[in-house]
């Protein structure tokens, strides 16, 4: 199993955010996390990355406790891209992507040829090789998002966690990134938070839905993105159509 989540409860300050989650994610493929604002999606993702200490319960990644791993070892296994990552000033695309090699660098020593090769592969994978020398500030929104994905790719961890990677992208850029993520899911395990349910239906191999810190449904997209589980996730009705390829298209009812 990629992740085993047992009785996971998390409190942020005085506020309980997650209430006793139990589920297991298989290795490989793309898992989508959906839910309303404040349902605990980001908290769950941060807990999977080992950035939050559970109040009770445990998060196991391939059988190991994520909060007990040494920070560098964890970073070599699990990469996470937060939602609002800020590009530091004065970096080129290649320099930004190279930051993803941090867990592999020896202290105070420069990158090795292995590190450089990983950076170039990551740039290639997102199609930014030509723009690698440009300043990050000069990129368009879609290009910038691809640069962030490349940073996470350069980390070369088997598991990649993404917090709303499609946010603020227009439709062509979304489609481009979705294709990239699908290719990614063939080689690594990807877990990502998604807002757009129809896109979730098209990209994800399985979907997990949260409501107020509790697991509502977990399974293949056509099972989770159905009117009844969606009503329990978001508290409103949904109209669902199934496309010829079997994937659902979802709209709030009455729109």
């Amino acid at each position, binding site marked *: 199993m990629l992740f085993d989540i047992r009785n996971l409860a998390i409190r*942020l*300050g005085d506020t309980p955010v997650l209430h006793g989650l139990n589920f297991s994610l298989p290795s490989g493929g793309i898992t989508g996390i959906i839910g309303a604002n404040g349902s605990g999606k980001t908290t769950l993702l*941060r807990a999977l*990355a080992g*950035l939050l200490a559970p109040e009770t319960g445990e998060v196991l990644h391939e059988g190991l406790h994520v909060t007990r791993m040494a*920070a*560098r*070892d*964890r*970073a*070599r296994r*699990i*990469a*996470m*891209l*937060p939602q*609002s*990552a*800020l590009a*530091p*000033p*004065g*970096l080129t695309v290649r320099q930004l992507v190279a*930051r*993803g090699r*941090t*867990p592999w*660098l020896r202290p*105070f020593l420069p990158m090795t040829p292995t590190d450089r090769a990983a950076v170039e592969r990551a740039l290639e994978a997102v199609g930014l090789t030509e723009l690698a020398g440009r300043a990050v*500030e000069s990129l368009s929104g879609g290009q910038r998002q691809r640069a962030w994905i490349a940073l996470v790719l350069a*980390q070369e961890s088997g598991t990649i*966690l993404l917090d709303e990677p499609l946010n603020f992208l227009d439709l062509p850029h979304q489609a481009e990134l979705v294709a990239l993520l699908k290719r990614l899911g063939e080689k690594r395990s990807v877990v990502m938070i998604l807002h757009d349910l129809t896109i979730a239906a098209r990209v994800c191999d399985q979907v997990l839905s949260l409501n107020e810190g509790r697991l509502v449904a977990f399974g293949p997209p056509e099972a989770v993105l159905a009117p009844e589980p969606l009503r329990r996730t978001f508290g409103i009705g949904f109209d669902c159509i199934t496309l010829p390829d079997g994937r659902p298209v979802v709209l709030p009812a009455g729109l």
Partner: protein
Amino acid sequence: MRLAGLILLLLLLALLSLSAGRTWLAPPALVDALMDPEGAGRMIWRLRMPRLLVGLAAGAAFGLSGLVFQTLLRNPLASPDVIGVTQSAAFGAVAALLLGGPVVLGAWSGGLAAIAILGWLAAHPRLGVEPRAVVLQGLALAIFAGAGTEALILQMTDSSAGMAMTWLSGTLNGAGWPEVVRSLWLAPMLLPLLLAGRALDRLELGDDLVRALGVRVGLLRAGLGLLAALTAAGAVSLCGPMGFVALAAGPVARVIARGRPAPVAAMLTGAAFVTLADILARAIAPAALLPTGLYTALIGAPVLILPVRRMARS
């Protein structure tokens, strides 16, 4: 390349500083004086050389401390002289003076107390230390420590109060070889900060991403903050709380390093800054010997405005 230019500039300023003063030395005379410490160079070696060295050390310390705090707190204004570390160190130093203890220890205690107070006040139960809270509460701490120092000075006799006031604006007057030896105490703090370039660089990516990259952010931030506070306090014990050096050196060093937090550039910028101010202090009014800190503020303000405008444009 730009770093080489900075080093060259610092060397030129150092030579100029050795020739500046009530009697200016032309280059040949300076060379003669440097070659002859016992004869023609007695004044240079006894007065100007230690003064230059102490200024370089203090400037380097202020500059480096400024860059580290500004990067840790993600705020180009959050230098030790804005968030109260320098003022608390000055309070500690004046208190040590009044009680007859060693000034260095007083300054370090003040600086450490400032860091402890700021960390304690700004620690958020959930988010850790919130940078904006540190800066705002640091402003209050600076005012509070400044008032405390004034209260201490009121306890002094007129003549020592006058000396204390000069010291409080930051001065290299009276810096001699004993102070040079004392400035060596800065080395154990400066060295790890000089090597912290990669750490500072990573911290700019934001806490979650850096932690996911395997960096232990809390430990790093506490360690760097402590070292930077001790560095600034050590500099205060050498030449008083010289204003604007730490504040201006960070942004200027960033312009030199194309936006990156470069410790070496910050250190060289701070050192160049103090050296230039001290040349002005001795060149403009050699008889009055106004405190060097007056001139760091004088050139610091415009020097600070330039990079801030440049940052705002990009």
